[in-house]
């Protein structure tokens, strides 16, 4: 039988993959993908909790919000990546240090 614990372990695993990817990868597109992974890991935890504690559907509702926000975030993030590429002709994060003093 699959319990809430199984779902949560999966969620934590995906979130960890996303976090590590966000921190160590240098390609901005991959970084954005890692963020999506983190958001979806959280979504998974929320809908799983809703499945086992369905009283107010708070988990589902929050998940919908996160999906909407993720879409907006992807749009803004990709726009930033495009304008950054125009500026520096690269999408590597270690090139993105022009704001440093």
């Amino acid at each position, binding site marked *: 039988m699959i319990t809430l614990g199984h779902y949560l372990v999966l969620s934590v695993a995906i979130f960890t993959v996303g976090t590590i990817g966000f*921190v160590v990868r240098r390609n901005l597109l991959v970084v954005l993908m890692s963020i999506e992974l983190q958001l979806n890991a959280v979504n998974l935890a929320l809908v799983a909790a809703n499945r086992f504690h369905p009283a107010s559907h708070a988990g589902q509702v929050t998940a919908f919000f996160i999906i909407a926000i993720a879409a907006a975030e992807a749009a803004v993030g990709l726009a930033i990546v495009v304008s950054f590429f125009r500026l520096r002709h690269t999408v590597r994060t270690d090139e993105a240090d022009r704001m440093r003093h």
Partner: protein
Amino acid sequence: MPGLNEISLRPGAPDQYWLLLPIVLLPALGALVNGLFGSRLKRDTIHTLACAMVFTSFALSVVAFLQLAALPHEARHLTYRAYEWFTVTLPAAFGSAQDYRIPIDVAFRLDPLAATMLLVVTGVGSLIHLYSTGYMAHDESPGRFFSYMNLFTFAMLVLVLGESLPVMFVGWEGVGLCSYLLIGFWFDKDENAKAGMKAFIVNRIGDLGFLVGIFLLALSLGVLSFPEMEQVAAHAPTQLTKPAFDLSFSLFGWDIAWRPAIATIAAICLFVGAAGKSAQLPLYVWLPDAMAGPTPVSALIHAATMVTAGVYMVARMHFLFVLTASGMAVVAVTGALTAVFAATIALTQNDIKKVLAYSTVSQLGYMFVAVGVGAHVTGVFHVVTHAFFKACLFLGAGSVIVAMHHRQDIREMGGLKALMPRTRWTFLAATLAIAGFPFTSGFFSKDAILWHALARDSGRYGILPPILLTLLLAGAALTAFYMFRLYFLVFGGESRADEDTLAHIKESPSSMTLPLVVLGALSIAAGLLNPEALHALGLNVPLTFEGWLAPGIEEGVPAVGIAEMRKPFELPLVGASSVIALAAMGFAWIWYRRGPSAEAERLAARVPGLYALVLDKWRIDELYEATIVRSLRWLARAGHEAIDKLLIDGIMVHGVAGAVNLTGRVVRLVQTGRVQVYAMAMALGTLGILYKLAVPSTDFEARVDGRSVTVNAAEGAGYEYRWDFDGDGRWDTQFGAERRAEHRYRKAGRHEVRLEVRNAFTRSVGEHEVVVRPGRRRR
């Protein structure tokens, strides 16, 4: 000793004498209007306003004077109490039993002495305002000038009419301010601005003494208004004559005792103030430099009125000075030395205004001798006659200066008597008066000073009168000589001016000569108010001035009387001073009647060192520069280096900024600009917070109080606590959010206290500690 309360100090509600208010305030109104709107008003409007205010004030003063004179002489005082200003509360001190409350009222009081000064200030002030309309006719800022002049009149009236020392001090500082403003009136020339500052700073030194004197009197008398102080001095003089402090000690077997009376210390402090304002040794140095101001200012402030404020103050405080023989001796000796010292400098000066300035210093010395030997009426009489003839001399000098296109060197003048007849005749009248030509005003007042210096019984300083007299006679001879040197060099002989200047010399307009004529006439005739010398000749003329002033000043206090044994000297003294004055005039006539004197130059060439020294004013300015000014500069520079540069700039400004800068440089190393480093830091931080939330920590403190113990556990988010107080393994309380718990032990001895903390994730952790309950104390 009678307590202060036994003397009636504050008479019942006095009748208000309203007229004093407009007398004082009209000049202030003029100063306000001209000061605020002077730049927009027309020149004629400014002149009319300023003169109208002072003339009205003068007219009202005459009315007030007549009303005062109509009173019987023991009731001759009129008061206007404007409002209660503040009250000083002093703790019991100087041997008094109770605290003092000294109410300071803004009150004006007219008595014969104040009325005399009032008429001089407003009268001479009016004439000089009128003269200024001519003298300053082409100046660029008449509004500012007349505003200052009116403001000066206002401050001088506050000084003269003030009922108490604090109110007088307000006027005292006010005239000092106006003096500063007017000396530096043409402030675009650096030396004028410096002269103003010098006057201000030297006066501050004197004012410090004045203030200390006021404080000392407040402490020892508990009252500060003149009539009240006079009552205390008259009825409880021990308040003033007891020692201020006791400095007695033995040195190498000599017993040295110094127990100066309060009156002595206070009198000397007040005299320091008077010496600053009235340009006496050693504080006279500002007055000659003050000639940088416009000439009417020199006439009004630095000759006729303000500089005599010191004499007026000493006369006002006569009841204090007569209680201290040594204080009076200090005043008289300083005056006599100043009189001769300044006269020697005046001998060699070549600037027309400088000669008059040193002569003012010298004449002020005569006045201080008079008030210093106790002849207050005589001193004030010389104030009055001096106001007339010195104002006349300065205004005459101003007339000459205008005609000479603002050249002041008497070596370039000469021959003006035909070109400027009115100026010449009035100047001659005033010169005769100051030189002591028989039966002029200056002759009567100066001769009276000489006579009183000899005749007044100056207490234990029996050797003093002949010394004073010798100095004053020498001063009189010098005065007559240098004044006629000045007169002959300016008006006599042939003109030494260049042709261009000579072509333009003309008599001044009537707005300038009219005051000259009035003052010149007064210089000759005013002596008849108090012709004491005629008494020595056996003529029984009334002494109007003495009859007017003496009842207020020389009755009711132990006055310094005239020694009978010196009576026979009076007539010879009149003769001697006349002969000396005439001889000195004749000497000046022989040397200078045709202009610069070859004999004088030969004499100067024979003692070149001495001549240069006197020409350089005995190099007193240089002496002060080398000692006082330089050491003060050194102090200021040291303070600048240590406090400004090191403490404020170095530590407080650059130090703080440097510390912030350094911190910034270190912290900046963390800011790499790489977004993933920040993300890493954020992730690690989140992990730390999570760990803190997930794993509970615990700590508690136990306090034993008699039989019971109070425990207090450390705080944590969502924590619950349970306690076991006796270490038996059974929990004495259930889990609860309360951090504090209390327990009473039945038995004394050691007990183990255990705590278990559980957090929201039901993780728990324990902690234990041993407490000791003390046993019952044995009785």
